[in-house]
């Protein structure tokens, strides 16, 4: 994987430090539920650090007491102590590692849950302006950089501080001069690593960008493969990809060489510290101010310090990432829930289905208004058709009924209740939606159909809904019937099949108010026929709002609302509006009439009488197996084989 590092923020400036600290504090606050684990972790860290400090002094003891003073017993004691201490250290190390990882996993779990909970409750208005990829990257990369820091970066930090303090204390006790000499290169090392962290940040960002560009170029090329092939522009595409590939190459070489410049220099500095200690310490031993064992121990302590000091650079880097990630996560968690049930909201009783708009105006987030002063009343069980050009406000209007958005002024009422005053769940559970593109979830078809139910629905109930939605037959023929999983990990349903499952889902909810879109694009005529039947079934006995594309729908509507620029410009029934002229007539002429004309032509309703006669008198068609040409409106015009 390419590294997903973000630049360490410039934590030098004061205001940023404050912000940085605030987020850090908030981060640690989120761990407050895990006091026991944290205490255990700190205990383990202290003990591991302490035991690490023991070994060099044992070697010192062996050299000074055992070898120099010739005490054979000291050897056995030293050996046993080393093993015992090693064992104790291993046990606490286990504790330290496991608790640290546990905190990483647990805080990741908590943050993911919190984000998921929040994202589900954020309003449509928020989601309209937010890309899925953006939210996903907060739930994945940001959560992982945050939790990794909590459980690991912070542990390392505590570890380094303890170790540093302990070692410096021990060293000073032995020889202050030698300590200062030995620490010199290590301080340079610390500065260098900090600087490196700073330097690498922007470089990692560049790599990320280059990689993003490469993926985007690739994605685009693959998605548009038909166009690329059709216009024979493979060479042009190769050039585009090559440019992105080169840029990535350059960015990576840059980062690795920068890294390669620093890394060996760090090792060199550690070795230089040893050189200084050996040289000056050696002279001190000869001068008798230091024992040989002390010198050896001194060097060992210094080496113990090298690794944590280098680690510090990464800790700084990961703290930067964590704060950046934390900022993005908290930004979401702190968002107000624009649409939620008011406190002590009334739970709606079962509705009759009367919907009233009272002087409703609406605008999406400070943009130009989408609805202007809309008023109308839909009586229970009526069909209301909404018609108008793209962007005229049809979708905005229906979105106000389940309170996906709030009206800017005016009120939307169901059975006389203002939707803003009632319990959201009791409102939405009585409203069903079937939209043009039906989204199903990657679970079994059964679970998809029962999606709106609080409890699992009985098999017969699900099957009944599927039958009414004309979906049962195709489901029954799937390899695992209702248990077939759809989506990425299962089978792919066609658009028409998805739509029928969505209709069954809405049917099972048995809503009093129904909102649907009657367009059935990209499906063949038979499927379209089935969908129309299913929709008709669904509409029965409910107040229905239809975003209408079809002549048959508008003809059946009890009330047609013609929208233009967010206003209701005409209202009435098909016949009255046709007589009235205006926008409705225009739309009819351009889009709906064709359907009518074509149909009439097909049925020879408009043909000149002699022409019809000519057809009827012509010799029998070669297709003797075809059904009767004149199809009575109420008989099924499908060939038996077509009813699948």
């Amino acid at each position, binding site marked *: *994987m*390419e590294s997903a590092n973000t630049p360490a923020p410039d934590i030098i400036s004061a205001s940023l430090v404050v912000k940085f600290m605030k987020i850090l504090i908030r981060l640690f606050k989120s761990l407050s539920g895990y006091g026991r684990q944290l205490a255990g972790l700190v205990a383990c860290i202290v003990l591991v650090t302490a035991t690490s400090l023991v070994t060099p002094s044992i070697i010192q003891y*062996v050299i000074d007491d055992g*070898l120099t003073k*010739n005490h054979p017993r000291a050897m056995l004691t030293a*050996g*046993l102590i080393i093993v015992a201490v*090693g064992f104790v*250290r291993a*046990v606490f190390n286990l504790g330290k*590692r*496991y608790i640290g*990882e546990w905190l*990483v*996993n647990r805080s990741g*779990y908590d943050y*993911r*849950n919190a984000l*998921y909970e929040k994202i*589900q409750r*954020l309003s449509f208005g928020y989601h309209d302006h937010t890309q*899925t990829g953006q939210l*996903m990257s907060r739930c994945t990369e940001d959560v992982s950089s945050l939790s990794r820091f909590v459980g690991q970066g912070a542990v390392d930090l505590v570890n380094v501080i303890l170790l540093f303090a302990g070692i410096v204390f021990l060293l000073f006790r032995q020889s202050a001069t030698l300590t200062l000499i030995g620490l010199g290169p290590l301080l340079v090392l610390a500065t260098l690593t900090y600087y490196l962290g700073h330097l690498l940040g922007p470089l990692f960002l560049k790599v990320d960008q280059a990689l993003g560009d490469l993926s985007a170029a*690739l994605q*685009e090329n693959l998605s548009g493969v*038909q*166009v690329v092939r059709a216009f024979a522009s493979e060479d*042009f*595409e190769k050039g585009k*990809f090559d440019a992105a590939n080169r840029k990535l190459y350059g960015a990576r070489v840059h980062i690795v060489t920068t890294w390669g410049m620093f890394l060996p*220099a760090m090792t*060199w500095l550690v*070795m230089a510290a040893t*050189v200084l200690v*050996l*040289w000056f310490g*050696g002279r001190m031993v*000869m001068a008798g101010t230091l024992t*040989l064992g002390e010198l050896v121990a001194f060097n060992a302590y210094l080496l113990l310090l090298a690794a944590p000091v280098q680690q510090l650079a990464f800790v700084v880097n990961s703290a930067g990432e964590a704060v950046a990630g934390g900022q993005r996560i908290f930004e979401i968690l702190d968002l107000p829930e624009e649409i939620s049930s008011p406190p002590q909201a009334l739970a709606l009783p079962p509705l009759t289905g009367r919907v009233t708009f009272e002087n409703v105006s609406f605008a999406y987030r400070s943009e130009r208004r989408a609805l202007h002063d809309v008023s109308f009343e839909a009586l229970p069980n009526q069909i209301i058709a909404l018609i108008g050009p*793209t962007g005229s406000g049809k979708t905005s209007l229906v979105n106000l009924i389940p309170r996906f958005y709030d009206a800017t002024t005016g009120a939307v009422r169901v059975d006389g209740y203002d939707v803003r005053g009632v319990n959201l769940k009791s409102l*939405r*559970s009585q409203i069903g939606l079937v939209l043009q593109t039906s*989204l199903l979830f990657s679970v079994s078809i059964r*679970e998809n159909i029962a999606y*709106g139910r609080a409890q699992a629905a009985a098999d017969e109930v699900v099957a009944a809904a599927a039958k009414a939605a004309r979906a049962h037959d195709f489901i029954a023929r799937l390899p695992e019937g209702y248990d077939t999983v759809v989506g990425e990990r299962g089978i792919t349903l066609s658009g028409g099949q998805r739509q029928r499952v969505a209709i069954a889902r809405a049917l099972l*909810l048995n809503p009093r108010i129904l909102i649907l879109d009657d367009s059935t694009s*990209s499906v063949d*005529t038979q499927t379209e026929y089935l969908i*129309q039947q299913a929709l*008709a079934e669904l509409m029965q006995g409910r107040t229905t709002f239809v975003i209408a594309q*079809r002549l048959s729908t508008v*003809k059946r509507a009890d009330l047609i609302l013609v929208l233009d620029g967010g206003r209701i410009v005409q209202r009435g029934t098909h016949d009255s509006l046709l007589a009235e002229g205006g926008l409705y007539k225009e739309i009819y002429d*351009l*889009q709906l009439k*064709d359907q009518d004309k074509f*149909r009439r032509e*097909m*049925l020879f309703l408009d043909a000149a009488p002699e022409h019809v006669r000519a057809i009827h008198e012509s010799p029998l*068609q070669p297709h003797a197996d075809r059904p009767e040409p004149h199809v009575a409106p109420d008989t099924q*015009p499908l060939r038996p084989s077509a009813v699948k």
Partner: protein
Amino acid sequence: MSRKPPTPAPDDDSILGKAYDPQIAGRLWTYVRPYNRQLALALTLMTVATIANVLGPYIIKVALDSGVAAHNIPRLAQAVTLYLLAATIMWACTFTRIRIMAVAGQSIIYDIRRELFDHLQALSLGFYSRYAVGRLVSRVVNDVSVVREFIVWAITAVTRDLFDLVGITLVMFALNWQLALLSFLVLPLMAVATEIFRRRARESYRLVRSAIGWVNAVLNENIVGVRVVQSFSREERNYQIFADEVNGNNLRVNNQAALIASVFFPSVDFIGSLALGLVVWLGGLAVLNGGVVASLQGPAITAGTLVAFALYIDRFFDPIRDLSQRYNTFQATMAGGERIFELLDTPIEVKDSAEAREMLPIRGEVAFEDVSFHYEAGGAPILSHVNLRVQPGQTVALVGETGAGKSTLVKLISRFYDPTGGALRVDGLDLRTVTQRSLRRQMGVVLQDPFLFGGTVRDNILYAQPPERLGQAATEQAIEAAACAVGAHDFIAALEKGYDTLVGEGGAILSGGQRQLISFARALLADPRILILDEATSSVDTQTERVIQTALERLLKGRTAFVIAHRLSTITRADKIVVMDAGRIVEEGTHTELLERRGRYFELYTMAFEGNVEC
């Protein structure tokens, strides 16, 4: 949300291969070979650095024994200088090696990515219908990155680890073979621990990857479907399922994995302590008595030796720890390599034959001669025995139900596939005898969902016609002329930066109707002799609809055109309507002819309209 973690599909990325597969490694090696000089240099540098590194503790021993203990300042100075020299050599070698390997490693990755992309450009559309775009992107981006880690890092790191192991072992034996043997007494323990860890880690790694995959899939789906979630008031139940099952499963398997690593690494450290304890005890005794323990008799063990041993033992376990940690990388590399090679080995189905000729400018006569087609050998036929002759300049409307074979029929004309039976001729030439490029340069395709690239409006219109062909000024004129002809000029001119406006990913800033018009302009500028058009079904507003209908007329004029028709006006105006059913042409004729015939065409449309009139 399903109740059990999904079982990964066979080609799922969480499947792990072996840690080492000679075939895949061998094939990876072919990419490394062009850089073997750099690699050799890098390995040489590393050898030098390792020697310097391994000598370090030995020099310290000399400094302590012959310098400090012997009160010999020049000797100490010598040793210290030597140590500094070793450090500097190490620095220079490592620095240069990383630089060389960075360039070589990234070049290798660059080469692999380029080869993958070139191959993807050559693969036929049949391949693309079987593979999701996301999965292909993952091959080129993620799998190659995994391989990069292996090549850039593992080759050098693993070699260094092995060098260190060998070097340290040798030096330890050279210093004092008895103490060395004593230290290695713990190795069997080490081997057992590593083997246990390897087995457990492998399984838990797989579980961890599949768990996070499940979490991400569920998250993604619920963000995309958040409107459905809210309209069905599923928030609480979804949260329960997510927290308890999906995310909870992820927590559990990650904690298991953490436990395994938490036990293993401290164990390695403890084994190291065991070795050190042994050395200190028996080695120390040997220093004292020089022969009390008979088996330890040998060259004198000094304080310096003991210190050096303590340092070596510590370093000896570092590479072992490192190698154990890399085990998962190895597995991931082999699996990634396997997927990359599988893609590279996918045969190119439609190829120019060796004798393929350039197709000269054509008139546009298209003939299907008993054409049959199926995707897989033995699979269901998509087209059977299609015979169709289209004169230059004719517009053919293809109608029929989904799956009748309309799209396949037009794809054969562009030679996106080759017929499995019969022949397809343009101006009398069998398509298999001409180069794909010269054929497609004379064809235009307008898709149902017009695909725009992320550049400017100009780039998109110009897509079929690289600017070098015409002069700069002529190009500008041609672009505008094309846009005007299809009625797109007005809205383009009204955009913020006119023709230089960036259209966003997939043309995101434009409406569906606008995207269609730009794709019309693109096709018009290509000025193809044969045009293939899959009509869009999505609804546009009345104004745009009017413009589109006029644009269509302009576009079709004077070309041979195949239209998968949805607009009634397009169908009725066509010179020829071809009705397809189950891969066959069942009827052919003009609108009036077909109506009079009252066959399939008649039936198809009466059904469509009867079906929904009075429900």
